[in-house]
């Protein structure tokens, strides 16, 4: 189910058609469906919000697009900076790595970063990988950490011992400085207080104005209301038994 809140006049960056993900657990001889029949589009400079109850496969859609999960069915058509369209579900791994480096960024629910590295370096890293000089990348990283209100004395420390909200800001800052073409957000404000959430909302809006296409999961309906141009509602997938009954009937 898709509601278009505002008319679409922006180029489409991502089209997901008939996406499904199920996990085949060999040891337990079980098939666990995670997402089914997902259709969505993401547009340049606009935000598409994924909503639906827990277990409806929202995160699984984001991970399938980023290829942390291998989609079981459907197409994930991404329009690149250079204008070509590519099915991320089937793209070559080197191609995916290159897109992750240059165009597609993912703010995951939990921060997975190199241990022992200062936060400012971790935030600068996506820029360094793209060839920005170390000093310029660190400057931009500090600027973003300051804007997200992360206390300055934490910048030179590894986020390992940070609070949930501090880690989340480091995680966000990494993607925000990179200004990707497509940004995937999995509950990016879930551990933030209202003031910091407002700061993040402001930064995300700036990125939207810059032209970044976003696909996001927000735990707070008010944020969906405030941020989303498009809303896609997912249903809890049917179990394999239900599906089999249906085909037999």
């Amino acid at each position, binding site marked *: 189910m898709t509601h278009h809140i505002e008319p679409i006049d922006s180029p489409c960056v991502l089209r997901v058609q008939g996406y499904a993900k199920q996990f*085949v657990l060999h*040891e337990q001889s079980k098939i666990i469906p995670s997402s089914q029949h997902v259709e969505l589009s993401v547009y340049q400079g606009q935000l598409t919000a994924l909503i639906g109850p827990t277990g409806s496969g929202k995160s699984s859609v984001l*991970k399938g697009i980023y290829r*942390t*999960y*291998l989609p079981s069915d459907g197409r994930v058509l991404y329009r690149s900076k250079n204008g070509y369209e590519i099915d991320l579900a089937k793209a070559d791994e*080197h191609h995916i*790595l290159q897109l992750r480096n240059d165009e597609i960024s993912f703010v995951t629910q939990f921060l997975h970063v190199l*241990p022992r590295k200062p936060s400012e370096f971790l935030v600068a890293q996506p820029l*360094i990988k793209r060839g920005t000089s170390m000093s310029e990348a660190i400057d931009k990283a500090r600027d973003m950490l300051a804007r997200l209100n992360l206390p300055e004395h934490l910048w030179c420390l590894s986020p390992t011992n940070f609070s949930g909200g501090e880690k989340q800001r480091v995680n966000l800052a990494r993607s925000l400085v990179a200004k990707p073409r497509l940004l995937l957000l999995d509950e990016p404000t879930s551990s933030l207080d209202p003031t910091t959430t407002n700061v993040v909302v402001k930064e995300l809006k700036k990125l939207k104005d810059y032209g970044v296409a976003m696909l996001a999961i927000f735990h707070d309906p008010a944020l969906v209301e405030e941020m989303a141009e498009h809303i896609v509602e997912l249903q809890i997938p049917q179990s394999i038994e239900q599906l089999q009954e249906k085909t037999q009937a």
Partner: protein
Amino acid sequence: MDKVLEVKNLSKVYGKGCADCFGLTGPQADTNICPSCGSVVAAHDVSFDLYKGEILGIMGESGSGKSTSVKCLFFDEEPTSGSAVFYDDGKQYNLFTLNAAQQRQLSSRRFGMVYQNPYLGLNFDISAGGNIAERLLMSSISHFGAIRERASSLLQRAEVPTARIDALPKTFSGGMQQRVQIAKALSTYPPLLFLDEVTTGLDLSVQAAILDLIMEIQQEIETAMIVVTHDLGVIRLLAGRTLVMKYGRVIESGLTDQVLEDPQHAYTQRLVASAL
């Protein structure tokens, strides 16, 4: 992107081999020993590409063929069949058709190898600095002062105290020996580096220092690396892509986060689920 290495259908059989060897071994057969002739199929049909600056992980339990595959590429073992092309500076080298002198030239100048056991990678009869000098002498640098300077800066880089440049490696701790080995392997700034279980058996803090060193170097000189390990943490930290091996076969390959979060093969699922 520049391709550095292309391996196709690499196989290594220890023993005389027979027509049944490949059909009767592997993950399905649950063995790598051929029931007909008793040969060990250490690796079969291993294929992959490697690009500049990329780190490829190979994981699997002991005896899965991961070290054998790497040893064939570094000319420590002779493969039974298959091909490997190394791309360097606009030239292509068909690794398994080179003569011994050409192989030595590549392994001493353009490849680096770090073994799990420092005894394999270091000469224990000469000093730490001498080990690095030995490798540099086999490459292009021959000026004594220049060699000494490079050795000293590399050891410093690997956090081996420069005061100990003239000490024998046998007087070093295991972690220090491993860092000297890495410094030696890197001394020629090779475009291709093989790391075979380099952190196995070391203290966690020493492991951390070695992993940090590897990552810094990879960022600085864009060396392509093949990291062989059974440690999922090392794979997660270092490798962009990963191969999973069992009984000599590649049973699964993919982006590292995908292999670890959405493993497809029953064996990989068990492996990932068993991780601490």
